[in-house]
């Protein structure tokens, strides 16, 4: 049984579907099939948000959808059921994806020199900064050299932790 109070699970669901999506999941029946309209009525979440959330959930294999055709009218009814049983394998995939992206970021941070606008408008690599004559294209301020060693340090630490945690 997935704990919806777990900060990691909450964070993942919010990242995928937003706060309203999580609210919908929390109020949705844990068992049995329901239609989108029944969900909207029971949870008080707007129907378009319910449909959007269900679409994302289905795409990420967090909900099961079954189609039923009414024999007399020929209308199709879509029946939905929550299925968070496989969430751990999704989190494992996210961890791998994050690890790969942080590694690429670390390489880029270590191999390049960065210049930033003191007003926080832009962050450029040396070549781009020199093309702009070291002036911010947004506000015209002088671009400043950025010591990115704290970022490199943070990245290295988290990558090490992820590596240890995966082994």
């Amino acid at each position, binding site marked *: 049984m997935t704990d919806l109070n777990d*900060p990691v699970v909450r964070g993942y669901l919010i*990242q*995928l579907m937003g706060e309203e999506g999580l609210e919908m999941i929390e109020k949705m029946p844990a068992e049995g099939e329901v239609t989108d309209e029944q969900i909207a009525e029971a949870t008080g979440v707007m129907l378009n948000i319910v449909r959007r959330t269900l679409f994302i959930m289905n795409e990420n294999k967090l909900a099961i959808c079954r189609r039923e055709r009414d024999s007399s009218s020929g209308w199709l009814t879509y029946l939905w059921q929550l299925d968070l049983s496989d969430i*751990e394998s999704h989190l494992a995939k996210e961890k791998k*994806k994050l690890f790969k*992206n942080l590694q690429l970021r670390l390489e880029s941070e270590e191999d390049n020199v960065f210049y930033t606008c003191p007003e926080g408008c832009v962050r450029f690599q040396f070549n781009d900064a020199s093309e702009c004559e070291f002036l911010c294209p947004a506000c015209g301020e002088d671009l400043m050299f950025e010591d990115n060693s704290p970022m490199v340090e943070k990245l290295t630490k988290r990558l090490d932790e992820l590596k240890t945690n995966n082994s």
Partner: protein
Amino acid sequence: MEIEERTLKLISDSKDGVYQNELWKMLEIDSRKCSRVITKLMNSDLIIRESAVNNGARTYLIKVVAPEEESYDLLLAGEMFSPCAGCRLACQPEICELLSTWINQLTLEDEIKKDEE
């Protein structure tokens, strides 16, 4: 099923562990063979055993080593979940601003931890 596998299953099935002087009887093997199997499983870090007394006789209580649960807390930086989850933007982690925000949250996470200490 091999004897090691059977032994491990029997120990895993018992929540409170199994006494060694009962285990060999349950497995229908002799105590010497049981002892060898136990040593093998202990060397593979699959079980642990501690001294115990059962029915007045000194023996060992054997328990299975619980597999370490994988933690996913590292996907969070402070309260922010990895922005790569469900991201539909063209993936350029080298310059991704959402990823930069997430990395910056790591500093905040460190500061909160230091404050708590």
